[in-house]
């Protein structure tokens, strides 16, 4: 007994009704909380996207001409004919980068999940690609420069420096470094959910490592692997700095750079927005597929 009467004062009663509104919230309040995000997304993503879709059906910069826009589908037929190589090289680079990441990423993710104790160190070093493709491309360009650090190695392999610098393999290499963490993240998450005893059981039953990999690990991590591959592909189709700094004239035709050239430099808005729409379409298909494959959606 303390004799302190203040602590004996009755608490304000809190009926369940009041409690629910205090935590749950009503329609208008919910809307108010969501409004800034919705305005940002509508005003700066969805409206601009609708805008470029409209513009992609007009000729050149006629969208702004005082006589009214000239409606045409010529931009799209141009992409299907004259600019088809641009689209194809974009897809080719993305596919190759995805394959490289897949081949090197699966063992990496496996070792990372099963064997590594010093994960924080690995994570800290893995952030370097996250700083951006620009620095990777810049660094690789310096490495591959004739007379640069890689010259003795290339000579030993019998490759001309100039052939190595502006070439498809160096672009793909830089792209796969940039996207590697996404692949490892997805496969690693899937592998983390596979019970290690399953591998031990397979080994006990006489399966060789290759058989365990082929018949236990691959089927059980399929969702994560597919999601990883699609994520990497989705990021790779927007590649910009790597083809520009490391590619030959062929790789430099990649769509993202052409969009900039045609749109901002040459002000051919119709064609450049049409290319943007094509790029967007590919990205959306890939994203839709990857979301279908990745399990455990955040909001249920």
């Amino acid at each position, binding site marked *: 007994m303390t004799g302190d009467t203040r602590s004996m004062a009755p608490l304000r009663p*809190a009926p369940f009704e009041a*409690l629910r509104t*205090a*935590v*749950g*919230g009503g329609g208008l309040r*919910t809307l108010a*909380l*969501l409004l*800034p*995000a*919705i305005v*940002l*997304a509508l005003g*700066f*993503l969805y409206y*601009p*996207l609708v805008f470029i879709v409209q*513009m992609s059906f007009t000729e050149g910069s006629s969208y702004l001409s005082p006589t009214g826009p000239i409606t045409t589908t010529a931009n799209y037929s141009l992409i299907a004919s004259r600019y088809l190589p641009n689209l194809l090289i974009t897809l080719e680079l993305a596919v190759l980068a995805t394959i490289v990441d897949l081949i090197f990423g699966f063992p990496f993710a496996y*070792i990372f999940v099963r*064997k590594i104790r010093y*994960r*924080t160190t*690995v*994570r*800290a*070093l*893995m*952030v370097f*690609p996250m*700083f*951006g493709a*620009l*620095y990777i491309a*810049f*660094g*690789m*360009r*310096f*490495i591959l420069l004739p007379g640069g*650090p890689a010259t003795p190695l290339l000579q030993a392999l019998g490759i001309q420096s100039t052939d190595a610098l502006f070439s498809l393999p160096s672009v793909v290499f830089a792209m796969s470094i940039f996207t*590697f*963490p*996404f692949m*490892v993240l997805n496969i*690693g998450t899937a592998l983390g959910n596979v019970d290690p005893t399953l591998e031990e059981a397979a080994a006990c039953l006489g399966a060789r490592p290759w058989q365990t990999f082929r018949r236990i690990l691959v089927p059980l991590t399929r969702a994560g692997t597919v999601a990883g591959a699609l994520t990497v592909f989705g990021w790779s189709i*927007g590649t*910009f*700095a790597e083809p520009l*700094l490391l590619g030959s004239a062929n790789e430099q035709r990649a769509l993202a750079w052409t*969009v*900039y050239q045609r*749109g901002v430099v040459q002000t051919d808005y119709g064609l*450049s*927005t049409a290319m943007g729409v094509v*790029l967007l379409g590919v990205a959306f298909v890939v*994203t839709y597929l990857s*979301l279908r494959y990745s399990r455990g959606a*955040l*909001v249920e």
Partner: protein
Amino acid sequence: MTTPSEAFGVPARRPLITARRLTDVLSHAYIWAILIVFVLPFLALVGFSFTARPGEAGAVTNYGYVLETFGDNLLWSLKIAGLTLVINVLVSLPAGYAIVRHTFPGKRFLFSALTLPLYVPGAVIGISLVLTYNFTYHLTTSMWGLVLAMSLGTFPLMLTPIVVALKDLPVIFEEASACLGATRWQTYRRIVLPLIGPGVSAGLLLCFIIVFNEYLVTLFVHPPGLTTAPLRVFNQIRTAGLAPTTAALAVTMQLISLAAVLLFFRLFGARHLKGTYLL
């Protein structure tokens, strides 16, 4: 004379190199080989940044040159990143709270619609924004156009960790707080916010790293006279070729970003970045 191990029937020592040990060594070697490849472009730039410019004596002067000539660009980068982070917090905190705690129809759809900017290629965001800024919003000369573009591209990276943190936070704390007579705002400020702090910080870190190093959307929408540091790197390579001073700027940018990451790991540990882009 028998050794103790033989006396107790323990078999002789196993051979030093077993198949298992060999696989282990190879596994670690593989991880480190890949990590070295990751760091290689950075190390190459560090080496390059310490080579002397033609007509200059000291190599360290490259970094002095960075502060002198590119100081403006670095300041712009920090300023744009800072403003973007403020907007991202103001947009994502309420939205994340409503998405997790409130019930309303179409919640999944809304969350997907809000995270979609992450999946749109940068060049598409760039061309669509530069055209709408020019012809509809008339936002071409203000830095806010760039800030809002950065915000649009990165606020989902902030929203996701906040949603994860809120889902992990049992609702009882808020109910208890409400029972004890706290107002909604008091509960939010003194209970919810401190408890989801690490999640918010994870979002801050991710957004900072992305915005601080962004050059692609910036190339499209930057107002005349405003060049951020990564865009300056891009322009320098395009126009002036490879120069040690440009490498020094790129190294400076990456070191600042790395410092931010390491600081976060030190303060909060890596686990709060789960489900986001840094594992």
